[in-house]
């Protein structure tokens, strides 16, 4: 990525791939450890061109609601993720959108394969563009904002009980 040193690039890619792997493997405790206290997680209905909260989004989690989401998943009674869906994410076309003193904003396209193991046993495909805002903290890079725009976000979606 232009604007990053090779080491920064490696570090950022490693972070993003790790975040994806933890999500792939439904390791929610591990995943949650990567996010900041002011994390915002947004899956808009259509392109991310409106102010979240002004009309319906699939997901519009502040940190509290995100914590609730993870807590629900970890109860062991979330039928919609019993068992957890086997998943694999592919991330491509990473571009650096902005860098500040302490933060990086990146965007890329993704594919997520999900085996809906709870009932239909279909292989589902989720695809779109993701934007990550990373913050450099004393503990290393942390995720402070993630926006996921599904290509078909204007169409009815199947159950989405995991974290994209």
């Amino acid at each position, binding site marked *: 990525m232009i604007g990053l040193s090779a080491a920064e690039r490696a570090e950022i890619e490693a972070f993003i791939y790790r975040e994806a792997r933890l999500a792939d493997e439904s390791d929610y405790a591990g995943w949650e450890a990567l996010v900041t206290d002011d994390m915002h997680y947004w899956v808009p209905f259509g392109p991310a061109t409106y102010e979240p909260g002004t*009309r319906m*989004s699939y997901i*519009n989690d502040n940190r509290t609601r995100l914590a609730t989401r993870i807590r*629900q998943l970890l109860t062991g009674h979330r*039928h*919609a993720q019993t068992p957890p869906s086997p998943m694999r994410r592919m991330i491509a076309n990473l571009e650096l959108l902005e860098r500040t003193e302490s933060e990086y904003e990146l965007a890329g396209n993704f594919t997520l394969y999900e085996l809906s193991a709870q009932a239909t046993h279909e292989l589902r495909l989720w695809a779109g563009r993701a934007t990550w805002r990373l913050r450099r903290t004393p503990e290393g890079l942390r995720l402070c904002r993630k926006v996921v725009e599904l290509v078909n976000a*204007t169409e*009815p979606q199947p*159950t989405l*009980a995991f974290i994209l």
Partner: protein
Amino acid sequence: MLARTDADAVDYGRLIEDRRVHGSLYGDARVFADEIDRIFRRGWVFVGHESEVPAAGDWVTRRLGRAPVVMVRAGDGAVHVLANRCAHRGTMLCWQQRGGGRKSFQCSYHGWVFGLDGRLRSMPGRSGFESAAGALDLARPGQVAAYQGFVFANQSGDAGPLDEHLGPGGKMLIDRAVELSPVGRLALGAGWIGQRVASNWKMWPESDNDGYHLAIAHASLQKAVPGTQYEAALFSPELDNTSQARDHGRGHVELELRCGYDRELAWLGTTRDKVADYAAALERAYGREAADRILWDGPPHALIFPNLFLGEMNLAIVEPVGPGETIHYHTPLLLGGVDAGFNDRVLRQSEAAMGPASFFLPDDAVIAERMQQGLGSGRGTTDGWIDLSRGAGRERRDAMGRVGHVSDETTNRGFWQHYRSVMTARA
């Protein structure tokens, strides 16, 4: 229109008993076709709410069963429901969920232009046509009517008045939703989120109004978020729980949670001091006593047969797609005449409660899919019966209809008995 004899007719009277129904009704292609005809074409179905198209030229697309329509507000303020199909050769006119600012609809095939009232306005090469004026206007359902801004339509035109379809129960339920607004108006502008589910449509009228499944199906929610409004009204043990299940007749059924709430504004997960402006507005509008009642009772949790779910602070539409495929759409019940903060709260609650990534509906959806799988996905056959007997023996009648314990299948029995009467009467 296609000729069809009844050689392979389904005997609905036999497959639907008072206390059980046959599992084949959820997966068979012929049953689905019959439902599309008898319920969704020859009966009243909910289309949308007038507040979804606030300005002239605003439109939304919907399905009456599988038939595409557009609901549009014309220049004179009238709301029309029109076939979303060019009167010339049938080309769909609007292919997005919604839009605005239209003066007319132009067909992309040959360019005919229709007014927002469906009238043919112009066509290229006019001299080639001899048809009488009006013969080539957009088709429209045989009956369209609104109650409190809720627009319903019936394609066949012979379903009787809407008033009769809603009945006192249906109207009362809608009234209770509307009355939440100090000005008696809804403002449904936040958009609909759709969830695609691999189940028959009937799982949704059932589970949306099933008071028996909460503690198990939504156990994860109860654990992760203790203290919601459902704690007293739905999660609490059978014999402590004073909520009720109601059958208002005509397929309209209700979980009456207000009798189970343990505090006012439980339905909004808040207290009066947090929504003081709203409470004050209600009091100004309706007086103290009525306002107190509204703040306690909150919105209805009920089905308007067959496709409208008054889901507390959400409205939901059940759209049948195929025997094993359904879309469940919802929008928050935003109110007119309230402060923005109030509606923000409703929207936030709606994002949490319904939709594919919410805290409730995913579990219902997966269970509906498991039910579909258990009953046979339309490719096989099943000999199974579905039990509906819960509480049948302790049910009673009051002025509004049959009433049972909130966890009883009074609601499902109400749905199915109306279904049976429609499916046999319109055979």
